[in-house]
């Protein structure tokens, strides 16, 4: 026979100020199997916990109900107290008479008291049917996977490597560096982006604990915290990385020039290329869609009737390569790796502004994006740091910036603030002035958001030192008039329309998640919001965790962020991963679902509803295939329990029988 102790917490006046404690105690004493009732002032305090421990020992209690606050708050505390008193920690039940009674029914004390009595009766009925549970433990693969080699991913990989943990860094592009590598100088200190970034990139490539896989993507993910199995697709570079000496002859001599992605279309690259001079690794890749030899091979393979003029066979890179590193036979490879934790730092891309018809819809050549200007400002960029108009190469003197293009605009489905544009517009207008004192910049803004450290001062510097004119208002139209772009807008502070004849217009296009982020999130089984930004487990208190244990997120992939924030985020994610990877074994919550194989009818509806892929199929000796729950993956959400038609699944610690008992205890 169970001997149940009930502890009714005053929580100072939080509960006792509303709920009639003596009345609740009297009612609790009458409940079946209750042998002891107490009312500590603060049950969670050390004295309160001691009272619980002592009562367990002295009165031989075998089950405990703490009626106090939410189990989210203190369930762990009281489980520990039970364990210290020698009781299985899972023989505890909490009745939440603070949030659910005192706080919400403060205006009706009698009702609050009555509800508290009922909640305790339910908890008593449930706890009587508790079984002792033991957490399971699983081993940990002490390796981490970092997906995305922008500054956030680089930071995470370095922190993990320095903590002596083996890391694989997977980057989709031929080089790491991310968007930061494309920037000229960085706000608010104007230090050169490459100068601070490239040493980190080199550190990654030389770190004994870090293995870099560029031109690679995650293909599939299975397993669970401590034991993920990941397939990584490494695309063929057609260049033997071991033989290549990065001499550069191939990319200088390749005759096929195409628009450079790294230069945001402002410059050209060859078909065999490294994205930029400081790329890591500095080994080229052959772009198969543009390579002439590949086109020649396609021509050869095509049926005679359909193929056109014979293209040049080319192969210049192959012929000129001193160490003969070009390898046409190289194929895509799939690597299978095991990891204990995963960090996702896939970053962002900028908004495609062609939906803005009023800004020329992408058809006006001298309307460019912030990233494109960034490339032109860069001394190592396609124009050698000279800003030029794409239409005629002329040097612009009047430059107009438009903020919030694809940010804070419901019409294009982007109501959020992109966080970095206000600051990079200020930065770019300062840099334009530094490059040429005759340049006059105008910024059309909604608000200037300069909330970081040193940001407000920086933004004032743009206005006061660089003479940038800030106009509050949206631009309604940009049109070409001769060589000028006429920008029509409103100065909403002066309440009048303004028109500026500009040489160059820069759109501060907002940020959005990198292409493919949601597909990756689906493979990893982590959440994302309506825009595709990855979801944190809690926006304030668990900013790098996800709802899948062992998978962490960092950087712009989670939401708009500047470099300092992305770096901090990367480090935070690394620390959280270390928290797992430094363990020998991980214990798992035993409150998982359990299938009664005898009752299972093999419909596998549970498999379909399980958000955590925890349902597996098991073949019994009689050849029947039934569902089985992988306890390491199961989060105890109970979806499978409620959808199981024959009632074959139960949640340990919250069984169907227990829920029924709770309902029966409820007196309506």
């Amino acid at each position, binding site marked *: 026979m169970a001997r149940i102790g009930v502890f009714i917490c005053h929580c100072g006046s939080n509960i006792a100020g509303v709920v009639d404690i003596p009345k609740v105690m009297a009612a609790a004493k009458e409940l079946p199997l209750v042998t002891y009732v107490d009312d500590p002032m603060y049950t969670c305090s050390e004295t309160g916990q001691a009272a619980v421990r002592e009562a367990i020992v002295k009165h031989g209690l075998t089950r405990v109900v703490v009626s106090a606050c939410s189990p989210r708050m203190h369930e762990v505390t009281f489980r520990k107290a039970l364990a210290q008193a020698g009781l299985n920690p899972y023989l505890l039940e909490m009745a939440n008479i603070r949030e659910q009674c005192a706080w919400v029914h403060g205006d009706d004390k009698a009702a609050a008291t009555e509800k508290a009595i009922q909640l305790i009766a339910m908890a008593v009925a449930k706890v009587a049917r508790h079984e002792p549970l033991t957490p399971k433990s699983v081993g940990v693969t002490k390796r981490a996977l970092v997906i995305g080699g922008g500054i956030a991913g680089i930071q995470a990989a370095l922190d993990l490597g320095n903590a002596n943990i083996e890391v694989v860094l997977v980057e989709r592009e031929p080089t790491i560096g991310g968007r930061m590598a494309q920037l000229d100088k960085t706000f608010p200190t104007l230090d050169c982006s490459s100068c601070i970034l490239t040493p980190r990139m080199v550190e990654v490539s030389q770190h004994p604990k870090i293995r870099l896989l560029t031109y690679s993507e995650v293909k599939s993910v299975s397993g669970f915290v401590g034991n993920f199995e990941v397939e990584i697709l490494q695309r063929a570079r057609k260049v033997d990385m071991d033989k290549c000496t990065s001499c550069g002859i191939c990319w200088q001599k390749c005759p096929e020039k195409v628009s450079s992605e790294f230069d945001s279309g402002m410059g050209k690259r060859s078909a065999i290329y490294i994205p930029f001079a400081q790329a890591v690794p500095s080994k080229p890749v052959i772009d198969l869609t543009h390579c002439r030899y590949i086109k020649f091979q396609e021509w050869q393979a095509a049926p005679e009737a359909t193929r056109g003029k014979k293209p040049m066979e080319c192969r210049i890179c192959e012929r000129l390569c001193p160490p003969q590193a070009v390898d046409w036979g190289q194929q895509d490879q799939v690597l299978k790796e095991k990891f204990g934790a995963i960090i996702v730092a896939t970053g962002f891309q900028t908004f495609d502004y062609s939906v*803005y*018809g*009023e800004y*020329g*819809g992408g*058809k006006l050549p001298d309307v460019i994006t912030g990233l494109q200007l960034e490339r032109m400002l860069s001394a190592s960029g396609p124009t050698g740091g000279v800003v030029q108009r794409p239409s005629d190469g002329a040097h612009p003197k009047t430059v107009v910036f438009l903020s919030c293009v694809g940010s804070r605009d419901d019409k294009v489905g982007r109501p959020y603030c992109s966080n970095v544009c206000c600051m990079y517009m200020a930065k770019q207008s300062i840099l334009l002035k530094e490059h040429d004192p005759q340049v006059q910049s105008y910024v059309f803004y909604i608000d200037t958001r300069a909330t970081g450290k040193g940001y407000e001062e920086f933004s004032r510097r743009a206005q006061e030192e660089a003479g940038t004119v800030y106009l509050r208002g949206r631009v309604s*139209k*940009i*049109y*070409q*008039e*001769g060589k000028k772009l006429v920008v029509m807008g409103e100065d909403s502070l002066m309440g009048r329309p303004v028109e500026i004849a500009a040489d160059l217009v820069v759109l501060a296009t907002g940020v959005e998640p990198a292409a493919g982020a949601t597909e990756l999130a689906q493979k990893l089984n982590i959440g994302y919001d309506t825009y595709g930004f990855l979801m944190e487990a809690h926006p304030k208190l668990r900013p790098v965790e996800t709802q899948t244990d062992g998978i962490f997120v960092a950087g712009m992939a989670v939401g708009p962020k500047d470099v300092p924030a992305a770096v901090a985020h990367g480090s935070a994610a690394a620390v959280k991963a270390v928290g797992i990877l430094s363990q020998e074994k991980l214990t798992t919550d035993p409150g998982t679902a359990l299938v009664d194989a005898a009752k299972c009818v093999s419909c596998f509806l549970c498999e379909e509803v399980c958000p955590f892929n925890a349902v597996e199929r098991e073949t019994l000796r009689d050849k029947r295939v039934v569902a089985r729950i992988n306890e390491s993956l199961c989060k105890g959400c109970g979806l499978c329990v409620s959808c199981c038609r024959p009632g074959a699944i139960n949640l340990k610690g919250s069984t169907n029988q227990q829920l029924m008992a709770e309902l029966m205890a409820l007196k309506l």
Partner: protein
Amino acid sequence: MPKYAYYPGCAVHASARDYAVSAQLVCQALGIELQEIKDWTCCGASSAHPTSHLLGLSLAARNLRLAEEMGLTLTSPCPACTSRLAGARHELRDPAALAEVNDILGKDFGNTVGVEHLLQVLSKGDRALPVKRPLGGLKVAPYYGCLIVRPQKVLGFDHEENPQSLDRLLSAVGAEVVPWGFKTECCGAGMPMARKDMVHKLSGRILAAARSAGAEAVAVACPLCHSNLDMHQGDMKPNPKMPVLYFTQLMGLALGFSAKELLLDTHFTDALALLRGKGLA
């Protein structure tokens, strides 16, 4: 055969006869029947709605009810009428407003009638156009004006900032549509009586932009835009001398009607010389 309850509105009925006639001819050629609403009255525009909001709403509702009785979707060649009527329909989704208006109408109006501008009707789907005389690359700037696509919430037609329906229609009849930035800019609207100077400035700018975009003519779909752009050119300095044609006139030419039938000889700014030069008149 698609059938519509046709609401011409005062301007198309009286001053923009060229628009009315060409619209009728084009619809006939395309097998679209326009059944004029019997006893239609003012849509509630101009002086009505500033005088009393309820008056404006009730006038619009009266015409909507007549169309509803015909069991047809209402169409009007006038963007102002369309805007008033569609706006009223939008506002009358509120049951209290509908009850109030029904009280005034003395009839049961269900507010179930559809409202579409003629451009929306003609640009629907991929209707095959029986083109007899393609416009041979006549360079046209499609001018939509302020109301045809606005407000989106009420009309849900095309795009507010860079509409395309007229562009597509004109290309389909063989015109070369020039890209330009003034598709929905203000022409001066109802201001020519009070502020001629303003109309000259605003309309003048539209015409100049069309010219610098390489257009030989401007196509319009609104009687008010037409009068502002066409009638005042003589008073503008310099005189833009830019033919302004209703889109239905351009379509009509391509469908084989003569310039005379389409009343192309009635404009203030001569369009015939241009059309003759292209072998279209």
